[in-house]
Structures are given as C-alpha cells and as structure tokens.
C-alpha cells in the first residue's frame, strides 16, 4: 500500500485515506485561450514512466490537497509538499536529483 506524508496535518496517510488527483503543476487556461492550450490543460498529460509530480487529497483525513513527487516505475516517493507552489521547490528537486541523477526535467527545468 502506498503511504504518503500529508504536509498539512503531518499524518502518514495510507492510500485508502487518499484520493489521487492527477498531474500537478499544470498551467491553467480558461476563456480566451487557444484550442491547443485548452486541450493541453484539460487532457494532454506527460504520463511519464519515472518521476511524476501529482496532486493528492487527504480525503479521509484533514481534507487538504497536497502535492507529491513519486516514481511511477518503482512507486518510490521522493517528497510531498504544499499545493501552494507552481513548480517543485528546491528541496524536492534536490531529493529527486540525488536519487535520479539522469532525470530530465523537460519543461520544468
């Protein structure tokens, strides 16, 4: 069972207490956006085999949304952090780089 540390209430929450919310750090596009941007925001996903930044909700706990950096190929969790960020913070990046030195940051670099 996947266990994630909730950065808000401090509980190590089991997967059964959590709700997965998909890819994090998406740029939100709304009215007036181009079709490409709107499609990208709503549907297109990186879906990487490797480091994945994602949203989680501590649904059966404090109820807060938070973010996690996790490896989809091994289920290893690198870090969890505040949802009030637009990009992975420096300490999260460092934790990932330490374990996945070859990881390409792509459009998050």
């Amino acid at each position, binding site marked *: 069972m996947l266990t994630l540390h909730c950065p808000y209430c401090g509980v190590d929450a089991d997967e059964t207490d959590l709700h997965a919310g998909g890819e994090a750090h998406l740029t939100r596009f709304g009215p007036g956006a181009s079709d490409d941007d709107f499609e990208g925001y709503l*549907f297109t*996903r990186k879906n990487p085999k490797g480091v994945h930044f994602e949203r989680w909700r501590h649904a059966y706990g404090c109820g807060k949304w938070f973010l996690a950096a996790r490896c989809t190929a091994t289920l290893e969790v690198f870090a969890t952090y505040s949802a009030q960020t637009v990009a992975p913070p420096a300490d999260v990046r460092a934790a990932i780089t330490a374990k996945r030195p070859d990881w390409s940051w792509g459009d998050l670099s």
Partner: protein
Amino acid sequence: MKRYSAFAIAREALRQHTGWDRAWAKRPPKSKYDVVIVGAGGHGLATAYYLGKNFGITNVAIIEKGWLGGGNTGRNTTIIRSNYLQDPSAAIYEKSRSLYENLSQDLNYNVMFSPRGVIMLAQTQHEIRGYQRTAHANSLQGVTTEWISPERVKELCPIINLDGPRYPVLGGLWQERGGTARHDAVAWGYARACSDMGMDIIQQCEVTGVKKENGKVTGVQTTQGDIGCDKLGMVVAGHASVLAEKAGFRLPMESVALQALVSEPIKPCMDVVIMANTVHGYMSQSDKGEMVIGGGTDGFNNYTQRGSFHHIEETVRALVETFPMVSRLKMLRQWGGIVDVTGDRSPILSKTPVDGIFVNCGWGTGGFKAIPGSGWAMAELMAKGSSPLTDEFSMHRFREGKFIDESVAAGVAH
C-alpha cells in the same frame, strides 16, 4: 505453413509428434521495412495481419520489447462484448466481435471463442434506465442485445444472489453472442499467420528512439539496432505515452494499473459472463474451471504492473455479495497490467503530428474484446490514410470536444 487439422493431429500421433513446425519464425531484423509495428500484443499483431490480408502489405516487422502477448494481451479477463452506447464504439466493437465469430477458421488456430453470453447487471434505478437506453441504441446499431428481467438473470446464472445486502439485481443487459476467448491463442494465432505471410516478429527488442526527417518518420532506434520504415504503428497500450514522448508528441492519456485474479479450479457452475458495475466486479468461469475475476482500476499513475491489495478486497467483496457461493473459494493467482485510459474512456486510432506515425492506444480496461476490429481498422488507417471505423477516434477529438463518452455508457468496468 502446415495447416492444423484433425488429420494433422492423427498424422503426428502416429509419428511421435516429430512433424510440427515452429508456430512462427525467429529472424533477425532487416535494415528496412515498409511498415514497422511496435508492440507484439493482440492489437499490434492483428494490425499487421490485416495489413497483409486486406491490403497485401507484407514487408512488415512487429517489434516487441518483452515477449509476444506478454503485456495486457496475457493479463486480461478475456471478455468479449459490443454492447456500447455510442455509434462509433458500437461499430468498431461489433466489427471486432463479429470477426471473433470465425477467427479460429480464419487463422487456422483455435482461439476458443466461446459466445456464452454476457450479462451486465442493473442494480440501481439509474442503471436500469442506462441499460434500457443502451439496448435501444444497440437495436438501432444492429447489435443484438436485450433488456432482461431479474428472473431471466437467475435462469441464466443460477448461482447469483438476486437479493444482495446492498444492491438487489433489478435486471440486466444481455448480449447472447458475447463471451470469452483464449487470450494467448489470439496473439499466437495472429503471430503464426503474420509469420506465414513473411512478416518478421522480433522479440526482446525495445525501441529507444524514433528517427524523423523533415517531420516524417524514417525509422526506429532499438536495442537490436536501427530499423528503417516508411510507416510506423505504435500499438503499445500502457506505454503509448512513453513511446510518443520519444517521437516528440504527447497524448491525452494516463497509465494506471488494473488487476485481475483467478480462483482454484472448481466444477462448472457458471456458463455466462456476469458484470456487476455498481458493486464493481465481474466474473466468468474458464474452461479449466477457475473463476476469472476482475474489477476497477487502481487510482494513480503507475507503470509497475502491480496494484494495491485493497482494490482486490473491494472486487472480491462485491463478488461475494453477488455470488455468495464463492466466499470459501481460494484464490490461485493475482496480477496487474498497465492500462492506458483516455479522457473519454474511448480508444485513440489516429494519425499523429509526425507524418507516417500512427497510434493505436487508449483501449483502457477493455482492449481484449477489440483486438480483431482494432487491427482491421488500424490496418485500413495505415494503408489508406483513413478508415470509417477510426475517423471518430482521432487523437484530436479532445481539442474539438467531439468525445465518444463511454465513461457514462459503460459505467466503470469497460
């Protein structure tokens, strides 16, 4: 290719089975093919087969990073049905189901298609309305399905409990010509037929890069060297996003784990397939006697081909409610596969932003039933540039808002 027949079995029985050929040839890759298909699962092999059979394109390689049929083709619960709500879905799934009817004869390989019938249970008022609507839609689409009463459900499947503790059975959507087939045999049968047409099936060969010139594909880099091609078909299910990234585009898709399990073999007790989408489990009995069980997907992005135990628990709880006699059964094996789920739960059979690359993915949790139809349609798309069966399944439908919304029609199991 020596044909398989009752006579061949008798002949080989008399000579110690020394005359059987390899089912498919093992050849090293050539430097260039007309068409390269990535992914030797059911869909990839079927695409290659119909390229050869329907369009005479036989200079084809099917390359596979693992072993033939070792992905979702060998991991599903083998259910075949075509009772979908939307017209484009009904068209391609019914094409597929009808190809299954005589696939064994077509391939000269027994795929053990067993049209034993599929019931999708209605256990809420909402589902009654939904399935009655689907039955009406199906009659307009030429797909034979029928709304049946709880008594008829009990008649077709005596081991079912109609008065479950949470959700009584209120009726069902019955497709008499749905059923199951032997999943490995489908892959093996197509592989044998492809090999017989001169196509190369190259296993243990992973694509590491896609070569392009002026926006057009020219080949792939693989762990067995570079292989050139004029057209490239990506038919890799859960890894479609990974391969698309190598070709320089992204897909509207996420990969999650779907688990299944089988019980110890028991005497025949159930000769239909039952899907219970409200409590979320489905079950059929294999020819060996094992109860074959599936449920819903795990919740998060995952490439590990493993799932979480609590999903198994949910599925089994649903089935104990529906079939109380299974409560003492021991489970033999459990496994997971990586399914590719799109925003509208419908597949993608499409041209891509790269000229010459075609993608067939997004079958999500319901790809096995679609193998022959998917291959048929994908072959037409690759050979002619379009197909009436695939036009609605373009990857650009999300931009245009032209969804084929089966997440409502199919509930959760799909």
